[in-house]
């Protein structure tokens, strides 16, 4: 079972791990302690103090606020509320629903036809970082992509309290 140094995990998080090392990491057995090392590296990289409970992406995290509440929070510090609720509902959105808007980001003929499908861009209300894009037909409900079983993960899999 491989073990990686703190520096290696930090290089991975920062996207600086050289390809040969990244390739070896992909081909090797997985290190069981990765989650803790990873969260520790991320914790040093966010501009706020709340404890990271589960990273969701490079810009979104489930965190524990000082009042004990578990919420979804952006890198920039926007609080999307209860982690069980779809964070997108508290984001800001821009929908590419015309050929002109589609052609801003794709060459003509190489994007979707907005009558069939639009692009919904969800931004952080603080930093306007693009957090997620949905490619769905008009009228499709906003997708709740991930509902983690946090209790189960911590208690059953990590063997510690949430």
């Amino acid at each position, binding site marked *: 079972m491989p073990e990686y140094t703190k520096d290696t995990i930090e290089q*991975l998080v920062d996207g600086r791990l050289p390809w040969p090392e*990244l390739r070896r990491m*992909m081909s090797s057995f997985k290190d069981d302690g990765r*989650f803790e*090392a990873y969260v520790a590296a991320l914790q040093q990289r966010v501009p706020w103090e709340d404890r990271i409970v589960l990273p969701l992406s*490079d810009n979104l995290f489930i965190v524990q606020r000082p009042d004990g509440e578990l919420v979804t929070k952006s890198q920039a510090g926007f609080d999307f509320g209860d982690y069980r609720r779809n964070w997108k509902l508290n984001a800001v959105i821009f929908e590419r629903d015309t050929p002109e808007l589609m052609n801003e980001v794709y060459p003509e003929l190489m994007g979707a036809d907005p009558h069939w499908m639009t692009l919904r861009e969800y931004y952080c*209300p603080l930093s306007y970082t693009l957090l997620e894009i949905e*490619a769905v037909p008009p009228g499709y409900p*906003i997708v709740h*992509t991930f509902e983690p079983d946090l209790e189960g993960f911590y208690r059953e899999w990590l063997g510690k309290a949430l």
Partner: protein
Amino acid sequence: MAITTPPQSKPATIGWDGQTLHAMLTESEQRFEKTGHYHGVERLTMQAEDPIRYEKIFSRLRGGMVNARETALNISASPIVKEIGELCFALYTPEGDSITLSTGIMVHVHTMSDAIKYIIRNDFEDNPGIAPGDIFCNNDSFVGDVHNADVQNIIPLFWEGELIGWAAGVTHVLDVGSHHVSGMPIGPIDRFEDGFILSSQKIGSEDRVWRDYELRSETAVRMPWYWRLDEKTRITGCQMIRESVHRVIEQEGIDTYKHFIREVIEEGRRSFEARVRQMTIPGTYRSPSFMDVTFAGETQLPAAAAKNSLMHAPMQIEISTEGGFSLSFEGASAWGLHSFNAAPSAMQGALWVLLTQTLVPNDKVNDGAYFGTQLHLPWGSWCNPDNPNASTTISWVFLIPSFVGLFRSLSQAYTARGYLEEVVAGYPGTWNMTQGGGTDHYGRPAAFTNFEHSCVGTSAGMVRDGEAACAAMWNPEGDMGDVETWETLEPLLYLSRRIRPSTAGMGRQRGGSGWEALRMVWKTADLVLYNLGEGHVFHGNGLFGGYPGCTGYRLNVERNNLKELIETGRPIPHADNDPEDSEILRLLDGVVVRDNRCTHLATPVGQYDVYVSLLRGGHGVGDVLEREPAAVAADVGEGLLLERFAKRVYGVVLNDTPEGPQADEQATHARREEIRAQRRERAIPVPQWLARTRERVVDKDFIEPVAEMYRSSMSLSEDWAREFRDYWELPDDYEI
């Protein structure tokens, strides 16, 4: 090849301890249901007590599979087998569960398992009989296959009068004899148009293919010589597997072998569960996907089939704290009058082949992973048709997009666990598929599929860009094949193959590029061509703010002046490159067919007509504004990104230098601030957007394919209909 099993008298039954095969299968299933362990194996005693011997047996059996595949590949005549490696071999238990497999199109490891179980459940043991040296053939997706272009041979393995397993091999053949002339027919609307189909049929005995079958197959397909040679390839591989299994039994003993094959599958099941616990997070994951079918106006189809439609694949994955992994397509749209429906066996195979590329990417994979997963396919949907006569000749058209969410969902889990090196934003559609048929350049009847679509771009990862032109989701060893080989098979010359800019999804990490092939019709007066791929919807999606890779378009220039350009030595086109500044349209005069109708029926073409095939790029990961400016400059310099998107989307301002484009740091910073300001100005709070969109839903303001998709999903699934109505706060009687 000689029979290696000594002649023996046929016992009353061929199963173990006097059982029939049917009884063995039933018992095995009951043991699994009762204990949760494969065949009721609760302790891995052999692995625990003699691990070296255990691993040695596995390695020798696995080596036999790879040896069979590599040998068969090199003696094959079919370019799809030889160039692309569209073949695979596997070894099964007497009940038809896979023990080990070769590399190649591994999707079929489980489909062949279904084909063997069809033989068992239908009591072939009694009639037509199962004996040493028998040969079976299957290409029926409702029995166990993806589509009838994937043809399987299955042979029983005997030892001292008992059936001790099965060897099976599959290759993708060039033609299946449908009247819709193409390698994987587009156009059939039911099974009766699909072409030649064999349902685990016995086609030989004593290691010889029966002459009556040979003669029948010669008249069933357009290129019987390839059909025959493919069959020899598969049978040879199966016989090599038989020899390697017999060698192992001779050295290890039959009792050890019998014990081993049970234990190794249970180990595979446990490994899968352990891997789920190690790599993922328990919870629910959702990732719907879609695919357009553009048959409106097709004069070759009956009115009910000549319409546009939209496939819906609402993938939902549940991972339990016990390591259980279940995948559901509840809410999927209905099967239709087209050839893109998928039988359950195909879906199971797809799940399996994808898992081997992400969650269990090692050589010790077998049906243990199948026993570790649950797959829910709604009855009546496109992925489990309630009509056994539904056409399935090219199930991949729906199957490929439907599973893209598996990678996205697992990547969400890997991101949460910190295994960033494994994250990938799905895969692009493996198209355009160039297909056609008629009379080839040697004057022979022909039908073909060009398998260069085995090499599309890969999607971005969390910490790396995707790679250009290198992979297909269904064959982990993607290869585009040599131009010269395709030119031998198809009456189409290549004018070029080129990496195509702005095919990949943009993002902090960008997808790998797609590419384009320009073909010229050559030496035939009787040829039809097809396009196949998505044109109106994105097949997948980016991850964490990345954009999806491109959709496609078709471009043919018919009755053109290419002959004149060549004869007078004037420039001819070598790329389309940019639809907004098309090299082809600048250089060629002719009748231009150019639109997003990327899936259509046979289109007649003539000598010198030009056909463009656009191969797709991968999806992006992360916000475009977080991509390193130097990386954007390099993308433009290397022809991976059209320059206008550097400034417009990435916000990177470039300067031309003798070394190529370089990012202007200050101007880039200012442009990125401008883009952020534009985002602030254009975006609205989601509740406001929901209120506006709800009005559209209430008004049912959708084009017919979208409306029909909603109608179809709501009528097939009460749960999905209720969720949709609840989401938009609609009355119970709301219908579209």
